[in-house]
């Protein structure tokens, strides 16, 4: 019998799988696909902006009180500061061990500011080692190097905005032939090509365009499998700090993160991960979920487990669906959502509204033990937990808390479900 069936293989689902497996639970993950991690920048955003405020958050931990005062049901109100700190530290330790080290600001309480692909400062809490030299508190001038014909990265825009923000920055282009001869390619194709490319040509070309003392920002394409070696070899050959700047999706840093977690879960921990398995239905008896069913060609397949963890994400991840009349619902258990159920209340007029849009803040309300609640405030089912970006009262994209919420709630939910007898 499966001890834990996790529905969803985004960052929260995969991490929950890893942490539950390490506690000895027989764990399965069933998911449609790999969530939204490979769309994002590969950084760990814990809390970048408070609702409606323009200045970036300096310390996500220090800002928690104000966040939870504005949004009392926020997932961080449930994990608490200690829970958030502990989960982020556990994540960092895990990724170090998996060979994809993450780092942060010199003061571990604070965010870093890293240049975005538009040249704006992104407040992030942890970044892959490859992005760290972009840290805006470092003194070196920026050289942003792009590749001709790469349509997902525009170095002149980045350099111009960095200059406007008061940094010394300039842009250069290199021929794409240094990496590939293909006519059509994505950033993922380029990263794969880098895994087997002759680095000396690229290193020489970089040396030619770089001035002494500059740090070199490249699009995030520096390899998938051999990423660590490539970064080290290139920095050494060029003799300058080299760092990656995220690109338009698909995201190579996001794919690296997904890949190491997935392989760790499946290979090292012998967990079972079934993709292409969309859970659509469930059955409950006496307040307990007995099985969930996934779509299959002939008839729905039932999956039994002692415990279930819902980590299907919100609107972006596919955990919620919506229709013209304004109804928004959770697709498997039809759990009550806090999202406004009238379309006239979904949006604000500005796409970039600093408060975000109400529809994207609605979600599943859970108790302190991360079990989803009924409207009456009781656990909906004895053996169902929820984690990740489907949780209520958080707009992770406006807050820049996407990964922080996923990591902290996955950690908290796993702790809760292990300590609950079912």
């Amino acid at each position: 019998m499966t001890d834990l069936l996790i529905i969803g293989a985004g960052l929260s689902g995969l991490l929950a799988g890893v942490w539950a497996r390490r506690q000895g639970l027989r764990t399965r993950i069933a998911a449609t696909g790999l969530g939204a991690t490979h769309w994002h920048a590969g950084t760990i955003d814990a809390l970048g902006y408070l609702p409606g405020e323009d200045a970036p958050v300096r310390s996500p931990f220090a800002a928690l009180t104000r966040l939870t005062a504005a949004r009392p049901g926020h997932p961080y109100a449930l994990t608490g500061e200690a829970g958030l700190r502990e989960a982020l530290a556990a994540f960092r330790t895990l990724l170090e061990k998996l060979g994809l080290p993450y780092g942060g600001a010199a003061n571990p309480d604070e965010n870093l500011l890293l240049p975005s692909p538009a040249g704006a400062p992104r407040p992030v809490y942890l970044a892959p080692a490859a992005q760290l030299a972009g840290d805006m508190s470092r003194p070196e001038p920026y050289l942003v190097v792009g590749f001709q014909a790469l349509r997902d990265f525009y170095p002149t825009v980045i350099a111009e905005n960095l200059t406007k923000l008061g940094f010394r920055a300039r842009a250069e282009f290199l021929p794409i032939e240094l990496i590939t001869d293909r006519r059509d390619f994505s950033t993922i194709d380029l990263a794969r090509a880098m895994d087997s490319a002759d680095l000396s040509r690229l290193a020489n070309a970089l040396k030619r365009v770089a001035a002494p003392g500059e740090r070199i920002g490249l699009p995030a394409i520096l390899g998938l499998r051999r990423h660590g070696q490539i970064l080290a070899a290139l920095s050494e050959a060029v003799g300058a700090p080299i760092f990656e700047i995220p690109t338009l999706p698909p995201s190579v840093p996001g794919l690296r993160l997904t890949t190491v977690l997935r392989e760790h879960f499946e290979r090292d921990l012998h967990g079972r991960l079934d993709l292409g398995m969309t859970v659509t239905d469930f059955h409950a008896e006496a307040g307990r979920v007995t099985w969930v069913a996934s779509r299959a060609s002939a008839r729905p397949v039932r999956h039994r487990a002692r415990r279930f963890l819902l980590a299907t994400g919100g609107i972006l991840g596919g955990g919620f669906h919506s229709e013209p009349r304004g109804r928004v619902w959770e697709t498997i258990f039809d759990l009550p959502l806090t999202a406004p159920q009238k379309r006239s209340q979904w949006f604000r007029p500005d796409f970039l509204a600093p408060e975000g849009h109400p529809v994207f803040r609605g979600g599943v309300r859970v108790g302190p033990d991360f079990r989803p609640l009924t409207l009456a405030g009781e656990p909906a089912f004895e053996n169902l937990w929820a984690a990740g970006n489907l949780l209520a009262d958080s707009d992770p994209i406006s807050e820049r808390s996407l990964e922080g919420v996923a990591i902290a709630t996955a950690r908290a939910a796993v702790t809760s479900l292990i300590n609950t007898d079912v």
Partner: protein
Amino acid sequence: MRAIETEILVIGGGVTGVGVAWDAALRGFDVILVERRDLAHGTSGRFHGLLHSGGRYVVKDPVSARECIHENRILRRTHAHCIEDTGGFFVVTPEDEDSDYPDRFVQACAETGVPCQEMAVSQALRREPRLNPRISRVFRVPDASVDGFQLTHATAQAARQAGARIFTYHQVTDLLVAGGEGDVRVVGARVFDAVRAEEMEIRAAMVINAAGAWAGRIAGMVGSRVDIVPGKGVMIATAHRLVNTVINRCKWPSDGDILVPAHTVSIIGTTDVPVADPEDLRIEEWEIRKMLAEGEKLIPGFARTRILRAWAGVRPLYRESAVTDDRDISRKFTLLDHQERDGVAGFITITGGKLTTFRLMAEKTVDRAAAHLGPRRPCITAETPVPGAEHGPYWLGHRLREVEDGRLQNQLICECELVTRGMLESAARLNPTVTLDDLRRDVRLGMGPCQGGFCTYRAVGVIHELKLGHGVTPDTEGSDWRVADLQSPAGNPGRGRPPVSGPEPVSSLADHLYDPNLLLRDFLQERWKGVVPIVWGQQLKQEQLDRLIYLSIMNVDHLPDAGLKSPLSDFYGVDVTPNDVLEEPHD
């Protein structure tokens, strides 16, 4: 203040205005056209794309029907490349069976000369398998799908080649008047150049008011009363091309009874709501529901299909006397010679009408102007193909074939609509461009399923690199507009990659308006404006992905220059969030 002179000043850069400029220039007049925004920014760029056969009007307005079929035949020659020859059906749905309309329709087609052929329902369903299988009769007519942006731009290019000068982003702030009581004469206009932020005077022997739904405001500047009832129509575009033929309901013209295949999408329209202000383009919730419900009658499942966008346009309906229902106001055009009508000389208003009949409207208008200014050469627009017509009608696959044949995949900036980097660069160089929305009208940037999610950042980057001299296409500044080629990946072959060194900044781009951050914010807001009225389901997920890209990854809400505004920033910022009015108001 700068002052220039011309014989004829045309106000309005919709299809009517550019048609007048084209016709007048061909006859040998010196012509200037001013448009306060981009060409086709108003009604000519906000309709469903139907080139009428006349079928829609045969019963109700036979004069319009005759004009339509006459002009339909001409435009297929003169503007062939702006048209996709889809043909059209008039179908009798179960809702329309208990009516004698179909028989009256057949009879009226015969009387007005609109070719109409009844065909077997089974045959129609083979050609259009999504069509409601419960339809009882189908009539085939020569409707077509027409690209209003390209039609306007191609006509403007022809006008320029004939010597007309066309100034976009030039708003008329006042008309210049000479003479006094009983002898008033319009002698030009004061114009504000929104790009250079300066005023100028244009003096003209004749001013032609082709401002469409805004014509009443222009006429009001000299105290002439022209009652335009702006009739707002809402259209929605589906993510898929549901049909390859224009589908009309065979009934008395009403709301949501036309479905037009337009490039990669299909468009259903329209509602008809009188509004006080032609800028009032708000879309009501009931209008969306009505379009979905009416679409369902033509295509079962329509209401569940993915909707990309909704927009509204305003018909310039001219009210001769009190009429209650908008759609009963004549769709015929109206030519007002203000000298005869109000004693204001040197001033003509052309209004009403339909896109299909723009050439005829222009001909009659210039005939009238020539009666005052002295005749020149006769009208030859009916026999004069505009540049690009030699390519013949477009078809759905033309861009894909050119991309594949030319191996231009790595140049694709907008994958949804197959817009290459070369096309964008040419459009930015050759057409006056202030926002990315202008480029959208030129090359269909951002009009596909992701609604600018990926191409907004890319287009901003391309324009920025172009400005710095990193273009992939040769600089053809000063050459004629090649509007026909803008739509063509093969017509704008890039070198594949920008030069490594020696950038020469492109001087023709209005520098202060090319702030990349302003371009980004404007276009994101412009796209959002059209998505909000119809976003749910899959498209809501798409919008959340777009937020992930532009907020989480790009952080564009924290870029420098937050205070910069383009001439259109406020227009894009109008609140369009859906209201709670779910039912059509009855009065």
